């Protein structure tokens, strides 16, 4: 495996806020790496360091063996602008042409627009595009220079289901064609659909860096809500990793296997009412990851 980019013991603070805290990470060629984490976890800061937009407070960032701030090291890098960032008055074809002019062997405008379903819109000013069309154009721009490494920052935020799937397909085709892709998201579904390796980030630290399968097993939690006078006893049942009490008096318990927890709950004879079960959101799962002591030690090494 060739290392395309790496962070080594990188800390980045903004004033007294530490966005990244001693993060080390290698990105090798070939994979789709999912950077998963709640808002404010430090995902975007990691990308902006790799793009050369920011400098680390301490530690080193390397891109293709050199500093990402040197433009020459960015010739094989593809990035997306935010969808709202496109210059309103330029036409779709012009934006692709403009960005393509920075690369030695750009994908022809027509071919790229075709690949991302934008052919009909080539003559439209970007200000006239819908949100979904802007998204697609933004992602397409990352691939115009035939990059080896592509950084996608929340590429499908705000898209409907169809739009999201179409974009995922396009990203997969580009990956099959040889691009290594790093994709940030706070949607577990998106990471599940695309990534092979998952890096979980929260509070500026890498909590998990493992295969998709192993990480999913860790963060997939169910929540069981009941009203009971003996919340502490329920919390002590096997499988409960965390619990919270709502203002209504109901207590929510988080567990990997809700069925097993309910069996235990009934068997224990604890009095309860208003039982409700649902999947935990990703944010809730992360909260559990960050609060549970043992498996959350940063595991920075990666095979």
């Amino acid at each position, binding site marked *: 495996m060739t290392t395309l980019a790496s962070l080594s013991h990188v800390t980045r603070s903004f004033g007294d806020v530490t966005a990244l805290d001693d993060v080390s990470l290698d990105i090798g060629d070939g994979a789709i790496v999912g950077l998963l984490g709640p808002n404010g976890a430090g995902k975007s800061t990691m990308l902006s360091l790799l793009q050369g937009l920011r400098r680390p407070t301490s530690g080193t960032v390397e891109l293709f063996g050199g500093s990402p701030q040197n433009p020459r090291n960015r010739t094989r*890098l593809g990035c997306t*602008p935010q969808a709202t*960032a496109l*210059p309103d008055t330029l036409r779709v074809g012009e934006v692709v042409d403009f960005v393509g002019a*920075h690369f030695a062997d750009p994908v022809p405008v027509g071919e790229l627009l075709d690949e991302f379903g934008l052919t009909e819109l080539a003559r439209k000013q970007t200000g006239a595009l819908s949100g979904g069309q802007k998204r697609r154009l933004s992602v397409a721009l990352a691939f115009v220079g035939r990059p080896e490494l592509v950084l996608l920052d929340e590429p499908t935020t705000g898209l409907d289901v169809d739009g999201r799937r179409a974009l995922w397909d396009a990203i997969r085709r580009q990956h099959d064609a040889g691009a290594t892709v790093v994709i940030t998201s706070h949607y577990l579904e998106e990471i599940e659909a695309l990534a092979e390796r998952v890096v979980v980030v929260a509070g500026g630290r890498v909590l998990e860096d493992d295969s998709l399968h192993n990480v999913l097993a860790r963060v997939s939690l169910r929540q069981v809500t009941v009203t009971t006078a003996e919340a502490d006893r329920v919390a002590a049942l096997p499988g409960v990793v965390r619990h919270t009490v709502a203002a209504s008096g109901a207590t929510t318990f988080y567990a990997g296997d809700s069925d097993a927890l309910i069996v235990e709950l009934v068997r224990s004879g604890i009095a309860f009412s208003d039982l409700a079960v649902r999947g935990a959101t990703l944010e809730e799962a992360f909260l559990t990851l960050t609060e549970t002591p043992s498996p959350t030690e940063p595991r920075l090494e990666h095979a």
Partner: protein
Amino acid sequence: MSATSLTLVHAKYSLLETVRVPIAVIGTIVFPVLALLFFVVPQRAVAGDPTYATQAVVSMAVFSVMVGSLFSFGLGIAENREKPWDPYLRTLPAPGLTRIAAHILATGAMAVAALIPLVVVGALLTEATASPLQLLGGLGAIVLAALPFMLAGICIGYAFSTKAAIAVIQIVFFTLAFGGGLFLPPLLFPDWLNAISQALPSRQGRDFVIWAVQGGDLQPLSWLGLLGWIAVLLAVALLLFRRDEGRRFR
């Protein structure tokens, strides 16, 4: 792709973006002509005298280039830093100087376009005169005289947010325009004001361009001062540019 051709590509799209909002173009071009029509043409004492009329047209030309540079750079950069398109462009493999050079080219093209109606109105409605060679000399001189304003614009753009930049630019261009004798000829200045005036880049630029067009004496302070302003502002601009990581919120 070489840095030069990349600069041209950036300049082309920067101009294209400007031209797509025609009123912005008209504003840049019409403003100085209006100033000439209101401040100079009705005053026959000035407009009727070839020497004074030519100096007045030069003053307006310097004013035009100054306003164009301050707004284009100051406001343009401040705005861009708040828009996420600019950070995206910074991820592309182009040296930072490419974007600055492109900005200078695009602004320069607009500034030259704004000078044409000024020269035409000056020639038709006043006694201002200049041979083609003198015009060319004036054009060369005004390029140099524009540099401090461009650099000052860059400094303002990187130092302030859009709203603050507008206020700062207005104060700076008003001070420089009156203080530099672009609206009222320095002949009317009391000595103390004249002394201050001679230290301003607008006055130095005006005197320098007048010298290039009309000949005569050029005080060393004019061109030395211009070079000094360029050196100082370039240093500050580079410092602010390197420090910049987009708009910071506290």
